[in-house]
């Protein structure tokens, strides 16, 4: 009866706590017992990351840490440099100025500045230059 009242008011049953703790601790145990799986994971991870940045593969480290509510993967991947010099994002266009009262200059037509649609603040960026093949460092060849 008391346990029913306890559970009704939100305290979890200890078997639920036990199940969750076991799930995490066994996950942690399994990961530490599968060094070959961890090696493959590390290898694949380095491979994927290397498509974007250059890494110091020899000093990469992947480990798993059990935390209070989860098992987390910790990856320490020293980055040596970027593959290409990155293109900075385009500057936002000037905000639209209110149309000036046209001088009676006889020109007739009012020139209207092309305004961006309301709310947009970045024009579409110019397409990035084609990546230079394989060269490290900041300046594309």
């Amino acid at each position, binding site marked *: 009866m008391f346990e029913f009242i306890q559970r009704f008011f939100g305290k979890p*049953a200890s*078997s639920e706590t*036990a199940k969750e703790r*076991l799930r995490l601790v066994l996950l942690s*145990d399994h990961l530490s017992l599968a060094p070959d799986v961890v090696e493959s994971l590390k290898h694949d991870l380095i491979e994927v990351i290397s498509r974007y940045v250059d890494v110091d593969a020899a000093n990469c480290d992947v480990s798993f840490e059990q935390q209070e509510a989860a098992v987390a993967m910790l990856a320490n991947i020293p980055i040596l440099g970027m593959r290409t010099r990155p293109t900075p994002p385009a500057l936002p266009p000037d905000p639209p100025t209110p149309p000036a009262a046209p001088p009676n200059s006889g020109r007739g037509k009012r020139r209207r500045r092309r305004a961006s649609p309301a709310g947009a603040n970045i024009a579409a960026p110019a397409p990035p230059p084609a990546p230079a093949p394989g060269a490290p460092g900041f300046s594309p060849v």
Partner: protein
Amino acid sequence: MSARRIVLTSGKGGVGKTTTTANVGAALAKRGHRVVLVDADIGLRNLDLVLGVEKRIVFDLVEVVEGRCQIRQALIKDKRLDNLAILPAAQTRDKTAVTELQFAQLVEQLGELCDYVLIDCPAGIEHGFRNAIAGANEAIVVTTPEVSAIRDADRVIGKLHERGLPLRLIVNRLRPEMVRSGDMLSVDDVTDILSAELLGIVPDDEEVIDTTNRGEPVVLQPESRLAAIYDKIARRLEGEVVPFTTFGAPGFFARIFGKAS
């Protein structure tokens, strides 16, 4: 034809391997199979005690392996069940007295003499464990629905997978009333966490203490409800599909006057 050689293991001590070995063995013998029980816990033998044959030990497993006697001289025939015999461990040696290869050969030789060899594995995952699984071609993992036992069972299951041994699980000492109140993991929780196939569910029962005191396997007690459960396990081992017992709620009064002590 050679016997089925089943090791009963757990990782954690005290979950009921020896009691289970004795009672599953007795249940199989009652059903007509020839069964040999082997106590692999060299140095801390207890299978003899549980079966009440401790006063009849003349030779032990180590002496067989060392060639100082024949297997048949060391085997102790049970007085209650014709088809049951036990090979006791040595008490004054330790587990390094026998190598894995020697143990495997011993178990194979025993397999020529019977239908089932059940090997009672010591606690742990060291030398004694490695010996005990050396001659086996199947395993039964015994666990209780408790956190430490399940964690250790998980480790053992990993080791058994490494050896390619097929295994099934017995959940021992279940307390249905505690499962209901959320204070104990359920059988489903256990099989989910361990991802193992269930062979049997044995409820906690104080009968076991009393019968062990007397050296009488609970399976041989006429009014024992555990006897029926071990019989089901034996039938499942034979290959029969037997539904698992569901443990219903004991009545209010049973709870006060019955198991509360």
